[in-house]
Structures are given as structure tokens and as C-alpha cells.
């Protein structure tokens, strides 16, 4: 754990002491080396339990894919932000990268935490850099509203979580996951216990987000600058999924009945947010709602609490993290050239940016869950386990898959095909940086097809 955490903390001196000319070069290289070292976590030679273990931090097959995703994302965020942050004064550039690096540190500690309170503190701590990134570097005045929604939705969910965790500590005497995984099932039979159950999960359901408490997401994703959107879509949403999967272990048997309304909300959310996507004019908003849709499927998979549900949830989280981040990067390339997120204004791009059209194509195919990409594998596992729970869910998930394909194709056709308007033809060509960024997003998705057992978690 320290072999990644210490280089990540040493990113801060790198950021502040490098000469201005080489700031972005050194931080990109440094964070890519951290990403390389983080791959060592993928070694899982036993068939149970935790590795890289010390008293405070450990990794296990659930947290490892998310940790590697987090470490992989920082260099991508730096690459994506380089162009629009460059004209700012140097100290502000350093501050921006510092915020990204601090997010990375908090996220590593969150996913690697063995004490649930440490996870909680890091969960809350990630809010601050993200809030600063959204409200300070966002591009429209709505960013202030977005920051408020983002902060207070998450806080409103997580303060009950704090109380629930303190109660758990009170009753079991420990909050270490290493110990709680072996504890006896708790006697959960009163209304108070049901409220405690809800308190444990609401924070993560808001973070995922579950349809119904998802309003912060379109605002935050749209108003954030590209690195903010990337980290929000790729990793911060997964904090919710990860938290739920950890807490579920001790919430039985109440979850059998109490999960019902949330599963229904999640499934309904897939349909609703998918339909909203079909009517969007704002490109980033479309991608944001598509994130809600995919996360609804993940939430359903986790709440079902079967091995396939959990595996499917992890696979979908990783695949969606990479693909959603790729889509936000593509949307940002259009935004940096046209200064608008309206889709009609930047259409017919395939004619002038043919290679980029390939990236758009692959990213949209991945988003609509094309086999053999892991997006499909995760979705299929979740749909199967939901069908096993209740055959009626196939109506909702099947329709959801259809609508997902619909809006992904809509996004592709709207941006790439069709007549190229006259004001588009004068746009700047694509930078090598942007092509590299897309390659670094999509090549891991393709490589994961060859070794998916890295993502299957400990259940399968």
C-alpha cells in the first residue's frame, strides 16, 4: 500500500517544486509511474481475503480494480486538463493539479481502508477538492448551484451514515472490516434497526446515484471542468457502489425486504434516465444521465446480494468508469473547439475529424454494451441475477438495454454523422495529446476483455 501511497503524496512536492515549463510533463510521467506500480495490487494468489495488509489498510479483490482505476485516472485527468488550464497563472495551475492529486490520495485511502470510519472520513474528504474544482474552474454561472447540490446531497446522505457507524461501533465494539466479516449476524428486528439499515445505505445510494436522489449528478458533471467530470464519473460514483458492497455484509437479513423499494427505484431509474438521454440537447448532460442509468443497474445488482450481482456490479463499475470518462473527454474536445455543449452545433464531425470519429465510435459502442466488452458482461450478469430474483425485472432491464443502445447511437449519429455545418470546418485539428488520451482510456477496456477475472471480485 505504501509503495503507491508515498509516491502519491510525493506528487505534492513534484507539483510545487518543478519549474513551470516542465510542470505538466513531470506530473504526467510521475502519475503514470504510480499507475504502473498500482498494477502490482492485482496479484491475488490466495483464494480468500485481503492482501497488502497492515492494520489500517488492505486490498482485496473488490477494492483492487477500483484502486487501479483511480491510479490510472490521475494521469488521464492531467492530460485532459492540460490545454484549458495552461493559460492560467502558474500557481493556479499547480493548485489545480494539487487538487487532483489530493483527490487521488483520499481515494486510495478510501478504497484501501479497513476501518469503516476511515473509509467514511475519506469518502467525505473527497467532497472538498471536487467542490473546489467544480465551483472554481467550472465554466458557467450554474457551477455554484451545481456545487451546492453536489455538496449537500452527499452530506445529507452521509450524516446519517456517521450516526449509523457510531451505533455499529457501539453494538459490535469494532468497525474494522477484517473483524466484522466474521461477526455473528446482528439481531435486526425493530423499527430502529430498519432506520439504522437505511442510514447505512442512503449515503451510498445518493452517491451512486440512485434515481430519485440523482439530481446532483447532471448538474455537477456538466458544470465541472473535464478533469472534474472524469473523476466524478469514473471513480467518485464507484465510492457509493464500493461502500454499499462493504456495508451489505453486515446488514442481512433486513436487506431481503428493505432492499425492495430501492431495487425498484434503481430499475425504474434506468428507464427514466435513459429516456431523458434521448431528449437531451446538451452533450455532457446526456453522458451524465447515461451514468445515472448505468449506475442504476449497478445499484440493482448490489442490492440483490448474490455472487453474480456483486461480480456484475464490479465489472460494470470498472468498465463504465473508463468509458464514461472517455466520453467526457470527447465531449470536452468538442467543447474546447466550439465553446458549446449543444450537440446540434457540433455535428457532422466525422468528415473533419476522421480518427476522432473512431474514438467516438468505440466509446459509444462500449457505452451501449457491445460484446465482448466488459460493459456487456457486467450488465448481463446483473440482468441475469435480477431475472433470477424476479422474472418481471427482465421487462425493465430489457427495455433499459434497448434505450441505452438508442441514446448511445443517438449521441454518435448526432455528433459524427449528418451534414457538417459551415462554422465547424474551421476548427483546430485534433491534438496528439487528445488521441493519446482516448487511447489510454479505451485500450484498457479492450485489454480487460482478455483477462476479466481481475474484475470478478471475491464472490465468483
Amino acid at each position, binding site marked *: 500500500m505504501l509503495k503507491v501511497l508515498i509516491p502519491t503524496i510525493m506528487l505534492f512536492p513534484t507539483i510545487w517544486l518543478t519549474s513551470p515549463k516542465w510542470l*505538466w510533463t513531470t506530473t*504526467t510521467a510521475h502519475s503514470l*509511474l504510480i499507475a*504502473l506500480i498500482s498494477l502490482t495490487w*492485482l496479484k491475488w494468489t490466495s483464494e480468500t481475503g485481503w492482501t497488502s495488509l497492515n492494520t489500517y489498510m488492505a486490498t482485496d479483490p473488490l477494492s483492487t480494480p477500483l484502486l487501479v482505476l483511480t491510479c490510472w485516472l490521475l494521469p488521464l485527468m492531467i492530460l485532459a486538463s492540460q490545454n*484549458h488550464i495552461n493559460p492560467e*497563472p502558474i500557481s*493556479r495551475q499547480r493548485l489545480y493539479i494539487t487538487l487532483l492529486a489530493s483527490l487521488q490520495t483520499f481515494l486510495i485511502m478510501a478504497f484501501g481502508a479497513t476501518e469503516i470510519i476511515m473509509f467514511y472520513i475519506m469518502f467525505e474528504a473527497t467532497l472538498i477538492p471536487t467542490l473546489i474544482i467544480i465551483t472554481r474552474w467550472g465554466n458557467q454561472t450554474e457551477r455554484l448551484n451545481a456545487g451546492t447540490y453536489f455538496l449537500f446531497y452527499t452530506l445529507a446522505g452521509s450524516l446519517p451514515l456517521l450516526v449509523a457507524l457510531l451505533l455499529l461501533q457501539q453494538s459490535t465494539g469494532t468497525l474494522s472490516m477484517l473483524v466484522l466479516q466474521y461477526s455473528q449476524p446482528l439481531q435486526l428486528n425493530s423499527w430502529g434497526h430498519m432506520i439504522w439499515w437505511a442510514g447505512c445505505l442512503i449515503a451510498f445510494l445518493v452517491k451512486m446515484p440512485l434515481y430519485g436522489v440523482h439530481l446532483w449528478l447532471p448538474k455537477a458533471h456538466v458544470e465541472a471542468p473535464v478533469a472534474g467530470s472524469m473523476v466524478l464519473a469514473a471513480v467518485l460514483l464507484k465510492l457509493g457502489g464500493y461502500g454499499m458492497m462493504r456495508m451489505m455484509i453486515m446488514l442481512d437479513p433486513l436487506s431481503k425486504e428493505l432492499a425492495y423499494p430501492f431495487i425498484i427505484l434503481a430499475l425504474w431509474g434506468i428507464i427514466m434516465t435513459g429516456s431523458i438521454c434521448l431528449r437531451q440537447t446538451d452533450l455532457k448532460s446526456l453522458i451524465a444521465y447515461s451514468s445515472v442509468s448505468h449506475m442504476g443497474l449497478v445499484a440493482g445488482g448490489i442490492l440483490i446480494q448474490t455472487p453474480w450481482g456483486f461480480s456484475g456490479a464490479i465489472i460494470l463499475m470498472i468498465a463504465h468508469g473508463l468509458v464514461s470518462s472517455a466520453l467526457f473527454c470527447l465531449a470536452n474536445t468538442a467543447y474546447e473547439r466550439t465553446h458549446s455543449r449543444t450537440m446540434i452545433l457540433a455535428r457532422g464531425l466525422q468528415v473533419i475529424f476522421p480518427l476522432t470519429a473512431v474514438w467516438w465510435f468505440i466509446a459509444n459502442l462500449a457505452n451501449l454494451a457491445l460484446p465482448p466488452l466488459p460493459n456487456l458482461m457486467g450488465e448481463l450478469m446483473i440482468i441475469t441475477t435480477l431475472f433470477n430474483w424476479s422474472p418481471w425485472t427482465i421487462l425493465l432491464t430489457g427495455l433499459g438495454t434497448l434505450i441505452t443502445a438508442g441514446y448511445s447511437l443517438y449521441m454518435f449519429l448526432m455528433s459524427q454523422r449528418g451534414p457538417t455545418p459551415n462554422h465547424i470546418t474551421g476548427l483546430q*485539428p485534433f491534438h496528439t495529446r487528445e488521441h493519446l488520451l482516448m487511447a489510454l482510456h479505451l485500450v484498457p477496456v479492450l485489454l480487460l476483455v482478455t*483477462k476479466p477475472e481481475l474484475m470478478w471480485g471475491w464472490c465468483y
Partner: protein
Amino acid sequence: MASRLSRIWPTLSRVRLSSALGSRCVSQTPKSSASGAAVASDLQPVSPAAQDSHGHAEVSPFEKNPDFHGFHHHDSFVDEWNMRLAFFFGISVAIVVGGTFIHYLPDHGMRQWARREAERLIKKREAEGLPLMTENYYDPSTIVLPSSEE
């Protein structure tokens, strides 16, 4: 609230270590942004020359540097070396070396071992005529249960 901040900010910004006096606090897209709402006009001074949000004049960087890679607008040396290092560490190191490392990782989660062990046990039990699987993992006669006093 934003206008109040813009009046306090110049004072606050002077406290910083490296001063950047006179620069705008907020990088905003110009008013031509089609999807943005009304830009708060007291935050953005009207710039005399047409500038894009990158603070550059509306000239493509490819004019000055045809080999512009997107990393650094003014210095082509830094731009080129940034590109080389990003590609080297991103693709050659992280993807290729990292991918090779992952490919050669030992049996992930002992799944292949489990399959081999199962086949070995099946072969052994069939050879000895034992059933492939018994209900009791432990011999029931070795388990001592407390009598019904509790």
C-alpha cells in the same frame, strides 16, 4: 455573492506567495458560448482583442508550430518532449510493461489450482471406489455435542 467576492478577491490574492495581480480569477468562456447562461458581466472584463478561452488570440497554434502536439502552446521543445514522455510512460511503460506483468501474474484467485485439485480428487476417489462427495466433511462420530442441558 459573486460580485462581492470579486471585490474582496484582489485583496486576498495579494496575500499569496507568487502574485498574479491583475489576472482574472475565473476562466470563463466568452459570451458567444451558446449553452452557457448569462455570463456575470462584472466578473469578465471585455477584452479588446478577440480571444478564445485559452487566453490566446484566435490563431491556430498550428500556424506557428506545425508540429504542435497539444501539450504546450509556446515552447515547441517542451511540447515535443511532453508528447514523447507521455507516450513513453503511458503506452510503453504502463500499458505494455504493465500489461505483460498482468498477463504473467500467477493463478488469479487460485481458480486454475481449484480445477486441477478437483480433477485430482475425482481421479483419486474414483480409483478408490469412494463416492465423489460425501455429505459430512468431518466424521460425525468425532463430533461431541453438549447434552440437552442448554
